[in-house]
Structures are given as structure tokens and as C-alpha cells.
């Protein structure tokens, strides 16, 4: 990020804060009977990397929508709580949304842990819950009121192994974070790796808050026959892994996960990030998409409005929240009703909805609605993202 952009961000941040406060204070004065949509996100704490852009996205989008007249002639009231990454707190806020705020739908659950803690509350209350977390267990087995917008960790593994196979890489090492996302993705990778004729010859892990992974990477480097390395994880860990990877001059292809699909990863990892590949939604290469690409319009519009309002580069996590609330709003419009059950039914009937993460088609057996096609394989080149490989 450039220096002046950073400086501008100061003013933007204060403006956003002032705006947020003003909105909060003026809410009671809004027109009668708004549609209440809830959100419990990890806007602070260890998962703030995810929750902060998600919260900002929701606020910006709801404000824009309300300016245009809202939905079904009514304004949307966003009830947003910060669980700080704590599953117990998330559960309490979920109960609050249902019992106290009486929301008709919810978009949130930045991490798998907080999502799983809240699922029983929404299932019992029969209120639709669109999660923005990654693990496949959120929608497998399918629960009637639970949906999700990000690609699953399993799909990420499949996309990575697909690319490795195409490049003839068959012996790989894995270094994963011990956080929920890293561990869960590692488990999924172990499950599907043989289907691609690949063997894992080294398997190390690091703590989410560690600042030096050279011991683990050294072990991996010294493994015989190593051809590539994959790093399931999110937050600052993968950036440090990437730097250490460069420091040790390992020189082999490195794959990251969609857990770091954002420009800030490149900034943090520095020059060592050149040549790294990872699966990510189209959002990161918005300006390089072909005009004929179905996602181009939606993606470019979201990127423009987010970057204008927040002054920071767009991230795919904010994109998950964007798709989540869009899906809910679109479902309300299709159902022409605001009863939770009707919203749920309309959500399940979503067909070919073009989001920033992909094109969603839900069904009774598929509450994610995305396949590997909407995942693009990206590579870091000259400090930016480009798309590589077949789709």
C-alpha cells in the first residue's frame, strides 16, 4: 500500500467511525418497522483479519441499500455484534439476536468455531444463518437453516492438488497453522491427496501467534525428494512462513490457501511472495478479468465502493460477507416476505446468483452452491495477483 493511501486511510477511518456513531445514534429516528438482519462477527481479537473487513462491508452495503430505498419498501436495520473470536460469546450474541433483537436472518460467524457454536441457536429458532467461515462441516451434513458463502477448505485442497498434478509435482511437504482453519484444511488435504497421485513427505505445524518458522521449514527443506510445499493457515503465520521460506532459499514452489487471499498478504510477505500460488475468488484480480467474465461487473463494483469507503485494498473475506448479505436481501426480494422460514426457502432456491466469490446455485442438498470453477488459481507476480492455469 502506498504511503499516501495510508495517510488518507486515517481520515477515512475517522470519517467511518464518526459515521458509524451517527448511524447508531440516529437509528431510533428511522422510519417504522425496519427489517432486522443480525450479524455476529469477530471484528476484534485473533480473527480480526477476517471479521474487520466483514463488518465494514456489511455496514457499507446496508447503508448503500437503505439510501436506495431499502428492500420491499422498508429500511434494513443491521444488528452487529463483535464476538472477539470467542465461541461462548458468539453463542450469547446469537441468543441475543434471536430473543432480544428478533432478527429475521443472520450473516456472520467469521470462524468455524464461532459458527459451529451458533448453529444450534439458529436451527432451534428456525432463522436462516448464512455463515462466512471456511470449514466444510458447516454445510456437511446439510442443515436446513444453515448456508455458507466461502469455498470450503476441501475445495481449496482440490484446486491446489489439481494445479500441482498439472505441474508434475508429486512429493510435497505441508506446514500448517494450528488454528481452526489451518488444522481443518490440513485434515481435508490429507483426505484427498491420494486422489491426485501426490504423497506428503513432510508435515509440520506452527502456532498461530509464532513469529519464526525457520525450525519447521528447515526440517521440511532437508526432506529427501521434496518438490513443493503447501501452507494451510490464515492471519500473519503464512506471511512469516513465506518470508522464512525465502530466507532459507528453499526455491521450490510454495502454495498458500485462500485464508490469505488479500493484498496485505503480499505486503507483509515482501519480495519472498513472488511466484507463490493460491486458489482465490475472482475478487483479487478484478481489474484483470476479461469483459466477458460474468463476475466482472459485480466484482468491480464491490471493489470500488469498498476501497472508496474504507481506503484499504479489498479482501476476499469482506467479499464473503458481501455475498452473504446480498443473498439474504435477494432472497427477501424473491420471496416478497420477511418471515424467516420464507427467507430460508428462497435462499435454498437461489440459482445462478453472481457474487464476488463465485456464482451460487443452491439446492436442498447443497447449501454452499459453489464449485471449483469459481475458484481461480492465482500467482503473485510483480507484487500483484495474476490468474494462471486452466479453470
Amino acid at each position, binding site marked *: 500500500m502506498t504511503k499516501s493511501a495510508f495517510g488518507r486511510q486515517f481520515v477515512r477511518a475517522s470519517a467511518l*467511525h464518526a459515521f*458509524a*456513531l451517527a448511524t*447508531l445514534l440516529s437509528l431510533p429516528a428511522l422510519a417504522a418497522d425496519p427489517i432486522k438482519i443480525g450479524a455476529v462477527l469477530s*471484528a*476484534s481479537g485473533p480473527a480480526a483479519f477476517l471479521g474487520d473487513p466483514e463488518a465494514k462491508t456489511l455496514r457499507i452495503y446496508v447503508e448503500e441499500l437503505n439510501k436506495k430505498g431499502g428492500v420491499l419498501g422498508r429500511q434494513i436495520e443491521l444488528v*452487529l*455484534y*463483535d464476538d472477539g*473470536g*470467542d*465461541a*461462548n*460469546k458468539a*453463542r*450469547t450474541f446469537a*441468543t*441475543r439476536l*434471536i*430473543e*432480544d433483537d428478533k432478527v429475521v436472518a443472520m450473516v456472520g460467524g467469521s470462524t*468455524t*468455531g464461532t459458527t*459451529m*457454536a451458533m448453529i*444450534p441457536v439458529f436451527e432451534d429458532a428456525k432463522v436462516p444463518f448464512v455463515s462466512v467461515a471456511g*470449514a466444510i462441516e458447516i454445510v456437511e451434513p446439510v442443515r436446513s437453516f444453515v448456508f455458507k458463502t466461502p469455498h470450503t477448505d476441501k475445495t481449496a485442497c482440490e484446486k491446489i492438488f489439481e494445479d500441482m498434478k498439472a505441474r508434475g509435482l508429486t512429493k510435497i511437504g505441508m506446514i500448517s497453522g*494450528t*488454528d*481452526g482453519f489451518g*488444522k*481443518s484444511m490440513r*485434515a481435508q488435504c490429507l483426505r484427498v491427496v491420494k486422489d491426485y497421485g501426490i504423497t506428503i513427505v513432510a508435515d509440520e505445524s506452527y502456532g498461530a501467534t509464532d513469529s519464526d518458522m525457520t525450525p519447521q521449514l528447515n526440517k521440511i527443506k532437508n526432506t529427501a525428494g521434496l518438490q513443493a510445499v503447501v501452507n494451510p493457515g490464515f492471519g500473519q503465520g503464512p506471511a512469516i512462513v513465506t518470508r522464512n521460506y525465502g530466507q532459507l532459499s528453499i526455491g521450490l514452489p510454495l502454495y498458500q490457501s485462500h485464508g490469505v487471499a488479500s493484498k496485505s498478504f503480499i505486503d507483509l510477505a515482501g519480495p519472498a511472495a513472488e511466484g507463490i500460488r493460491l486458489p482465490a475468488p475472482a475478487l483479487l484480480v478484478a481489474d484483470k478479468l476479461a469483459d466477458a467474465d460474468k463476475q466482472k461487473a459485480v466484482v468491480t463494483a464491490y471493489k470500488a465502493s469498498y476501497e472508496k469507503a474504507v481506503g484499504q485494498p479489498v479482501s476476499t473475506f469482506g467479499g464473503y460477507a458481501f455475498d452473504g448479505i446480498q443473498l439474504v436481501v435477494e432472497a427477501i426480494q424473491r420471496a416478497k416476505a420477511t418471515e424467516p422460514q420464507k427467507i430460508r426457502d428462497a435462499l435454498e432456491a437461489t440459482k445462478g446468483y453472481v457474487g464476488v466469490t463465485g456464482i451460487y446455485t443452491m439446492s436442498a442438498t447443497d447449501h454452499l452452491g459453489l464449485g471449483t470453477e469459481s475458484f481461480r488459481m492465482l500467482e503473485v507476480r510483480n507484487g500483484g495477483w495474476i490468474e494462471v492455469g486452466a479453470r
Partner: protein
Amino acid sequence: MLKGALRSRWTTLAVLALVMAIVPLIAPSAFYLRVAALVWIFALAALGLTILMGYAGQVSLGHAGFLGVGAYGVAIGPAHLGLSPLLSLFLAAALSGVIAYLVGRPILRLKGYYLAIATLGFGLILALIFQSESAVTGGPDGMAVARLTVFGWRIAGAVQWYWVSAGVLLVGAWIALNVADSPSGRALRALHDSEVAAAGAGVDVAAKKLAAFVVAAVYAAIAGGLLACMNGLITPDAASFMHSVEFVAMVIIGGLGSVLGAVVGAAFLIVLPQALTSLQEYEQAVLGLLIMVFMIVLPAGIVPSLRNWLTERLP
């Protein structure tokens, strides 16, 4: 006479029971009952810690680790060993006591901040085990917990959990107050003031410290088990260092060595964040500010300060 009443254990229990009876009458929705149930559960754990820190004067920065033992015990028993949740709860509490006994004997030889670091390390190691042994504990995303059934009655819903947790806390408070007034309790407080003097007076210092440590661990484990069953889920962050610090904060803010103090401290740290949500990003700053202000103005803790204030003004 009123002054005497202020210090009697029956007053404490009566006040507690009164509050427990009133809350459901004024709670606007089930959400408030859930928050209250959380307060009772965390107060139980804080109560154990106040016995250790307030009566016996030993600092523990790993208390949440024992809460984790109780919580995971209740999760693993039914899931991996086929035991009933209720039996698992008792076994987990017993296991927590045993672990405290084994670890306490070497650790409690340390004093002051050294003890704090040792308990911190121990708590961290427990949390690390919960997070890493995914095959048994479900890893960082935790594991689901079967619902608690007591003699055929399946406890579910905010109202039932409110009364269960309130009842357990009341029993726990009664036990703690009895201990405080007994020779053991007086021995503990003598320990707090001066270990050398207590030893000189014939108190078995090491045994009493260990007993307090074990009792605290059992209280925390029961609280953890109830929490896990109420949520239907347990994650490793329940045993984290930050939660251990939170318990210490509850005990100190409420008032060291005070049963009501443990409850007030728990209420302070659980209800306040809920009340401050409208401040959005400013919540943490305001919370930190409130903690500082309370401790500067009422350094003895809320309940002891209140008690002293009332004592001065009553006949």
C-alpha cells in the same frame, strides 16, 4: 445487630437467593436468563479461585485450565467412552481434583509471582493439549457436547439452565461459607497473613494450601462441565490464558475472599460487555477504563468496600 448480620454467612446466602429469585421475574426475554446463567456458572469458578486467592492467598493464573478439564471431561465421556454426561461431570470434577493434587504438591512450594508463573505455565500446557490432540478433543474448533440428563430429565433451554446453574452456585456458596467459618477456614486465612506464623501456630501449611488448590480446581471443573453442557459445545479457548486472567479479574474486582464478591465480579465482567455493545469499537477502551476506575476507587473490591461503607453507617 445489623452489623453482625452484615457479616453473617446466612445474609450472604439470603441475598444471593433473593437475587436469583428476582432475576427471572424482571428478565424481558430468554436472552437475559442465558446471561444470568453464565454469570452463575462463571461465579462458581470464580468462587473456587477466591477460596484459593482470598482465603489461602495463593495466586493462580491457570484457573481456566481446570475449567477446561471439566468441560472436556463432560464432552469426551459420552463421545469417546460411552458414559452418561452426568457421570462424566462427576468424573471430570474428580479428575480435576486429582490433577490439582498431583501438580499442586511441587508447584505450591513456590511463592508469590513465582507461583503465578508456574500456574500460568500449567494452564497454558493444558490449553495446548486441548487444542492439539484433535483426535480426542476435536482440535481448535472444539467438539460437540451431549445434553445433560439428570435421572431422566433432559436439561435444555435458558429457563432450566438458569435454575440449574443458580442451584449449583448456591450449594457451592454454602460450602465455601461453611469452610470459611470452620477451623480449616481460619487456618487458611492465617496462612494468607503469614505462613511462618501459621506454621508456628501448628497449621499444616503445605496440606492446607494443597486442599485449597484442589477445591478451587474442583469448583472450576464443575463450572466448566455446566458451561459445556449448556452450550452443547466446547472449544479450547475456554481454557485460555486470557480467561484465566478474566477469573483473576472477577475475584479482585468483586473482592478477594468474598463469596458475594465472586458473584459480583463475574456479573461485572459478563454483563458489562453486553451492556456496552452499542459502543461498538469503543467497547474495549471503555471496559479497560471502567476496570481501572473501579480498582482505583475501590481497591479492596466492590463487595468489601460496600460492606465497609454500610458497616460505618449502620447502628
